[in-house]
């Protein structure tokens, strides 16, 4: 997993002066390609993403259900017989209903139904779309803004750095979940309207923005540190001596060197973002109904945990697998791009 990769010196370099140097990116790609575990996890991730993208196909053409419509009086077919989706309780007074359990039949309630008679398997796929979308977008926001802040603070130094670094320190000291909860409670209840800018409470943009913002210090601080040390390296001083503008220095000397940091952090951030999304949704301040995400499905499953555990188990397994794949892949990417492990992981 994180062991040193041997034999990384490409064969060409031994060939004398005519040898063609291999670029750092291709070298990293080769190292990654040799990491079987990481590749297997990348494949698993790809499968999960494709499955989730196919959610409408599954719902409309295989399971023939509408996963956003409650179906309390519906029936389905088990072993060729028509049975109600919500089964009348046989215990006690016979009051209350229990949703149907997993049928393991892809066409009819594969993983059973939730409390509203909706197909859990179809909701799982739709929920996965939202979870992946929120995780990816939030990780992109974090990376882009952290890169910007880290570059500006590290490159310009002085007052700019002082202000930005203090700001990062404060957000850093604020426990992530509490910050996310505070922002979510204020925003999710009734949405936000600010001049022409209006977001309803159900908008996915709210959790995306909130999760994307709270993790900025975790990426921005290491980037700032790297930019600070790059700034004093000879090749940057040489470029300054040649009269390069600040813009040019940042763009062609500093940025390419910190890009690896961003790439190393990306899968790990994505994993953390997906866990955060699930937690917020579980606390009912993330994705809002009727939309689903893996977190909201676990919340739905809480009420029928002891009778129909599949509702809560399935999305949890989906999250755990996805996050595990991302973590292993992230380790692989780090080993490939940063073999001496300069960047320490701080989860």
């Amino acid at each position, binding site marked *: *997993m994180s062991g040193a990769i041997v034999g990384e010196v490409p064969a060409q370099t031994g060939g004398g002066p005519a040898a063609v140097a291999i670029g750092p990116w291709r070298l990293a790609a080769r190292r990654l390609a040799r990491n079987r575990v990481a590749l297997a996890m990348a494949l698993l991730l790809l499968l999960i993403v494709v499955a989730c993208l196919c959610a409408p196909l599954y719902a409309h053409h295989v399971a023939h259900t509408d996963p956003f419509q409650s179906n309390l009086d519906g029936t389905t077919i088990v072993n060729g017989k028509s049975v109600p989706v919500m089964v009348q309780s046989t215990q006690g007074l016979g009051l209350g209903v229990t949703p149907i359990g997993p049928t393991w039949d892809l066409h009819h309630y594969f993983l059973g139904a939730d409390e509203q008679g909706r197909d859990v398997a179809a909701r799982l796929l739709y929920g996965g779309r939202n979870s992946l979308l929120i995780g990816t977008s939030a990780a992109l926001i974090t990376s882009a803004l952290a890169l910007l802040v880290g570059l500006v603070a590290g490159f310009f130094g002085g007052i700019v750095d002082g202000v930005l670094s203090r700001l990062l320190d*404060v957000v850093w*000291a604020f426990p992530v979940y509490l910050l996310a909860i505070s922002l979510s409670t*204020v925003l999710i209840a009734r949405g*936000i309207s*600010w001049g022409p800018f209006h977001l309803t409470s159900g908008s996915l943009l709210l959790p995306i923005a909130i999760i994307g913002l709270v993790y900025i210090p975790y990426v921005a601080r290491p980037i700032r540190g790297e930019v600070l040390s790059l700034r004093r390296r000879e090749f940057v001083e040489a470029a300054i001596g040649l009269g390069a503008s600040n813009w040019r220095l940042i763009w062609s000397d500093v940025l390419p060197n910190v890009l690896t940091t961003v790439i190393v952090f990306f899968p790990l951030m994505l994993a953390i973002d997906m866990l955060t999304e699930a937690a917020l949704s579980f606390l009912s301040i993330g994705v809002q109904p009727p939309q689903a995400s893996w977190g909201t499905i676990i919340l739905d499953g809480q009420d029928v945990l*002891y009778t129909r555990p599949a509702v809560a188990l399935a999305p949890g397994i989906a999250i755990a697998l996805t996050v595990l794949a991302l973590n292993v892949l992230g380790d692989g990417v780090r080993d490939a791009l940063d073999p001496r492990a300069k960047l*320490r992981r701080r989860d």
Partner: protein
Amino acid sequence: MARFLARRFVSMLFVLFSISVLSFLIFFATPGVDPAARIAGKNADQATLQAVRHDFGLDRPLPVRYGLMMKKLFISRDLTSYVNRGAKVIPQVTQAAPVTLSLVFGAAVIWVLASIAMGMLAGVFRGRPIDTLVMIVGLVGISMPVFWLGEVVNLITQSRLHGSVFSWVPPLGYIPFSRSPFGWFKSLILPWLTLSILYIGIYARVLRSAIVEAQEEDYVRTARAKGLTERRVLFRHALRTSLIGFVSLFGLDFGALVGGGALLTEVVFGLHGVGKLTYDSLQNLDLPVILATVIYAAFFVVVANAVVDLIYAWLDPRVRRV
């Protein structure tokens, strides 16, 4: 040391102040959001809205409002809920705090011991199957959502196997230590384990890489050259320096957990700690309670970090000069 103490204290005050300003701004000055409507709760009438506006001075300038809020939180301590009319918020927080502390302390003991054992095993036997195994277990622990893990634990111990192996598990909830120490232990052991699993994974990984790194250091080679036993080299030399990073990480995580990071575990296991209080007030959007718990929690984190820094400076004199 005195200068270090003074400087650390000033910086702590600065962060405390900034955090209070930040939470104040989030709750009272988010653009496009009417704070009165949020504080008053879901279906507030005009009279309540007016009362809220007056109470929090929402018609006055921002700094005055900030002062009013701080006064309510720390001086008069009379912040009241508008959802549960008249319920004072601060006593609720202080009542909930022992539950959270019990949960986090126990979990911390478990995760520190387990992760040191696992990290050392993996670090010493690096590259061998046991290393891979430990690291895989750690990664799986990191990858599971803690609230989901808690639900799985509940499913097994409260329902599926409650009739046999887990018949000793009390119903969900907290049993105060003063009432029954053994009951307290029984009510908390599963939440402790659940909460610690994530951290065991993280800390074992951190410690492993620190030990692997330390093995290459000159002082470890010197220790070996002196003819010390491998065990002595590991415990007295390699482990000791490896624990420095471990300690600082611990301070951050411990503070964050006491400050509400344990919220999800508390919710799933029905422990009425500070996190559960936050959660319950989230359900009916009881903003004053959320505000109080968030600020309480953030303060706790900052103070915990400062304490860790002090311990750190005491352990390692070099830090004092920075």
